[in-house]
């Protein structure tokens, strides 16, 4: 502040102000006390600086006479800038079309890029919003490239034996039926160990979180999330200590989690305390295990310790788990949460940045043309003594005004885009609720706006100032053609636009090709006549397998008596990405070598009627029947065609035997039939086969599978009505036709295609507008030359060809550079592409051809104007 004052005020004035200020401070301190007097002094000092700056700028801008010396120097420059900015604003207002185009295109690019930076910052870059997030690790089982969750056996062993973590916790994701008053709802919940919250550093907003005492109290304590507490209990603090029914049994609310939680708590309604039974075998593997590294422990030391625990566990549980190579490892929690979302986000960010670059190049090209049109005005300024710096200043101030306007548009676009992403991206972008348009994003906007200013402003200013200095005042302007520098600058800019647009359009082409292939994948079940829903029976009411079996039988009968229901069955999973159980096995005829990993595939538990209801066709052997589900029956399964081909190619698989879960001491399981292939692990994943086994009577979580006579969606209301009639305390959830499930599984690729496609289209349009602009300007400037050529017998077709080829030369150069760039960049898209190579020649050639063709159309319009020139008119007017 003192330095600023020194710059703004002559020495005498500054001394007088400071002295008088301290005098007033003394007077005020005596009257009002220290605090107010000091605050007043600070405000006065700030106020003086602000007022001096504004006053001087205004005064120098209006050219008011002042006394000379130091007062003029620095502030005169400010005044000059102020005058230039006002002049530029007025001058741009006279060409509103040009100004609006630049402000909107650059503003859109800037805003979208800023929004994407905010999203990437929040989702990919920022640490997880947990206390000491850098020390929290996820413990996983690793075999080769595969990583799995842990079992209760693993967790108990880590908890008892490790020393590298100061806290360890485990969590299991489940669905529960919560009954609050009359409302019966399915909710997502986590079963957690007592240290879960303290490990993550989470705190309650009411009541308390779990502690050791809850662990052995029968698992009836629950903690609510803030969101669920607000929506279901109206944020009533009295709910702490009260009970409500979860899965048919009363549970006591011990506390409410604070709103400042992280992605692991997102979309969760409540937490139950763990009450896992003592395991009798190594699996199943359903636990998310977290450890917080001790401040002095390294990740490498923790890894070594986990490996030692794995080695100690193996011989103890070898009878139910033979995979000796599988090892417990520390893994990165953030990578697990963010998953593969980072790559599409970077792709979208690259897309918007590309559009921004093209918009800037386009704006620069338009401004070069504008500056050249103003050559005479600039030449007058130069003749009157304006230095080259002054002329560049005048031209740069236009870019400042334009980029300032674009930045304002960008702010609005970024606010809207971030809001849209948080609203629509919630289901497929993790951590999206952490996205904010805050400080760092605004610094990015400022930085990008500065970069845009340099891209837009510098080239036109330098090119035009050079020609302005060189040009005389002669000539009426109409005969002038642009100088070689300006012409070259515009052509280079247009070529650069095509060089950036080509990879973008190729990326759009690749991703569209990928989506088309994905949408043509056959899921294996009739998508329009099969509808499914999830139903869970509470353990409290349906404690025995017989009780559950009786309900499932009644439900089947009730559904089959409904009009429009053609067939009905049960399964524990749904296509195309909902396989509940991915299990390993060992084939009798193809045994896994010791130390090797056993093969894996989805194991889908079904009732015999499932096949008819889903339309899965028997190809060899027999289907499962009622007797297979009984406990005394020998274990049998049905495999699908892809499974049969994977292990036995063309040989018959009926009668082959395997050990489920690799359990060597268990009886053999026999394959009794082969059915048509269904996708259970994703449309984009290769067919590695599926095994169907009889669903157990006691299984209380099932999907209802209904084949309908008419369109499947018309049956949706029947689900709730039928189930409510059978038991009003049950909640049907996740009702969806196979078509719905396929659509939702392709949501991310579809959004990505729309986004990248839109960027590609925007890039193409901007580039073509760019080449059109250059060629139209070229024709306008050369009208007289063209007229003379025509008068001397030039053919209109040759004139047309000349103009089009002249434009296409620029386009071809840009596209060629773009193809090379695309070749280097598209391999980064491998993870988001399905069924198409990142260097797919057909896409590269097709996209380039389309770009050249569209550019040729862009050049053809000015070419036609050139060919229609009337030589007589031109020469008469000359």
């Amino acid at each position: 502040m003192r330095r600023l004052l020194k710059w703004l005020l002559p020495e005498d004035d500054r001394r007088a102000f400071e002295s008088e200020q301290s005098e007033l401070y003394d007077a005020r301190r005596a009257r009002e006390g220290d605090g107010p007097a000091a605050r007043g002094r600070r405000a006065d000092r700030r106020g003086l600086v602000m007022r001096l700056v504004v006053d001087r700028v205004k005064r120098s801008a209006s050219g008011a006479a002042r006394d000379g010396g130091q007062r003029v120097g620095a502030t005169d420059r400010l005044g000059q800038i102020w005058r230039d900015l006002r002049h530029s604003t007025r001058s741009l207002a006279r060409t509103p079309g040009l100004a609006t185009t630049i402000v909107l295109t650059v503003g859109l690019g800037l805003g979208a890029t800023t929004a994407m930076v905010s999203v990437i910052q929040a989702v990919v870059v920022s640490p997880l919003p947990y206390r000491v997030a850098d020390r929290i690790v996820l413990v996983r089982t690793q075999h080769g490239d595969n990583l799995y969750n842990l079992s209760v056996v693993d967790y108990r062993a880590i908890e008892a034996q490790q020393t590298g973590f100061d806290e360890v916790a485990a969590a299991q994701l489940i669905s529960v039926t919560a009954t609050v008053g009359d409302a019966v709802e399915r909710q997502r919940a986590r079963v957690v160990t007592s240290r879960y919250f303290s490990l993550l550093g989470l705190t309650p907003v009411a009541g308390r979180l779990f502690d050791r005492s809850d662990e052995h109290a029968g698992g009836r304590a629950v903690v609510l999330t803030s969101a669920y507490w607000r929506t279901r209990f109206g944020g009533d603090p009295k709910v702490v200590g009260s009970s409500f029914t979860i899965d048919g049994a009363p549970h006591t609310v011990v506390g409410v989690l604070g709103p400042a939680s992280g992605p692991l708590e997102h979309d969760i309604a409540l937490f139950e305390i763990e009450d896992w039974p003592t395991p009798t075998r190594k699996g199943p593997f359903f636990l998310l295990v977290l450890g917080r590294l001790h401040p002095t422990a390294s990740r490498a030391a923790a890894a070594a310790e986990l490996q030692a625990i794995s080695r100690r566990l193996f011989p103890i549980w070898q009878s139910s788990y033979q995979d000796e190579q599988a090892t417990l490892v520390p893994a990165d929690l953030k990578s697990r949460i963010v998953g593969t979302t980072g790559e599409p986000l970077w792709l979208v960010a690259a897309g918007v940045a590309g559009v921004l670059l093209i918009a800037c190049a386009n704006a620069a090209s338009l401004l070069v043309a504008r500056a050249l049109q103003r050559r005479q005005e600039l030449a007058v300024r130069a003749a009157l003594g304006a230095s080259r710096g002054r002329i560049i200043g005048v031209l740069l101030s236009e870019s400042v005004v334009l980029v300032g306007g674009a930045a304002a548009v960008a702010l609005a676009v970024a606010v809207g885009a971030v809001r849209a992403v948080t609203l629509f991206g919630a289901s497929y972008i993790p951590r999206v609720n952490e996205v904010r348009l805050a400080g760092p994003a605004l610094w990015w906007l400022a930085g990008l706006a500065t970069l845009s200013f340099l891209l837009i402003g510098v080239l036109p200013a330098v090119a035009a100032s050079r020609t302005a200095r060189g040009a005389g005042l002669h000539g009426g302007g109409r005969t002038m053609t642009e100088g070689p520098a300006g012409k070259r600058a515009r052509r280079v800019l247009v070529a650069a636009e095509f060089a950036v647009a080509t990879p973008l359009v190729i990326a759009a082409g690749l991703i569209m090709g990928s989506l088309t292939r994905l949408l043509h994948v056959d899921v294996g079940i009739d998508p329009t006549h099969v509808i499914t829903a999830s139903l869970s029976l509470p353990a409290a009411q349906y404690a025995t397998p017989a009780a559950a079996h009786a309900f499932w039988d009644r439900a089947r009968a009730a559904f089959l008596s409904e009009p429009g229901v053609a067939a009905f069955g049960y399964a524990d999973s749904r296509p195309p990405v909902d396989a509940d159980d991915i299990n390993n096995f060992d084939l009798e005829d193809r045994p896994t070598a010791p130390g090797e990993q056993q093969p894996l595939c989805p194991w889908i538990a079904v009732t015999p009627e499932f096949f008819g209801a889903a339309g899965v066709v028997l190809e060899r052997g027999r289907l499962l029947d009622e007797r297979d589900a009984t406990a005394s029956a020998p274990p049998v399964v049905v495999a699908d065609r892809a499974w049969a081909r994977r292990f036995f190619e063309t040989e018959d698989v009926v009668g082959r035997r395997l050990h489920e879960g690799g359990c060597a001491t268990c009886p053999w399981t026999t394959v009794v039939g082969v059915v048509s292939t269904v996708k259970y692990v994703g449309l984009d994943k290769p067919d590695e086969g599926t095994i169907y086994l009889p669903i157990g009577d006691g299984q209380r979580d099932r999907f209802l599978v209904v084949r309908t006579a008419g369109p499947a969606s018309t049956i949706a209301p029947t689900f709730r009505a039928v189930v409510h009639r059978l038991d009003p305390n049950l909640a049907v959830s996740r009702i969806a036709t196979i078509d719905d499930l396929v659509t939702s599984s392709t949501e991310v690729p579809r959004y990505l295609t729309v986004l990248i496609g839109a960027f590609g289209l925007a890039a193409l349009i901007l580039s073509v507008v760019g080449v059109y602009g250059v060629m139209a300007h070229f024709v306008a400037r050369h009208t007289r030359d063209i007229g003379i050529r025509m008068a001397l017998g030039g053919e209109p077709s040759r004139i047309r060809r000349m103009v089009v080829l002249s434009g296409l030369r620029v386009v071809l150069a840009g596209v060629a550079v773009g193809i090379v760039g695309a070749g280097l960049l598209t391999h980064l898209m491998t993870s988001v592409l399905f069924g198409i190579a990142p260097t797919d020649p057909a896409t590269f050639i097709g996209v380039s051809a389309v770009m050249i063709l569209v550019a040729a159309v862009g050049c053809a319009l000015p070419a036609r104007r050139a060919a229609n020139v009337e030589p007589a008119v031109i020469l008469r007017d000359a």
Partner: protein
Amino acid sequence: MARDALQPFELQVLVAALRIGDDAYSVPIVIELEKYTARRVSQAAVFIAVQRLEARGLVTTRLDDRATDTGRTRRYVRLTPAAKKLLRETRDLQARLWRGLDRLIDRG
């Protein structure tokens, strides 16, 4: 002309300086204005107003490095004849404008 018209705050500073007389500088002007307006007055605003008035030839200023009472540096302000003429004109114009309106405005 609007450009030549006095801003209300500049007018207040001129009147305060006139009232204070030979000892007018920013501190007594601030205190005087706070007394009459019953509002906090910014010393920076007074300082700037004085600069503007000086640029328009309405006041002259004199730097005193050793003011007799405190030994501090002060810039004393004195009204020029042009300022006194402008104040007279402003006062007369105001008086003419308000003539006969007391009854109307006081009646509420």
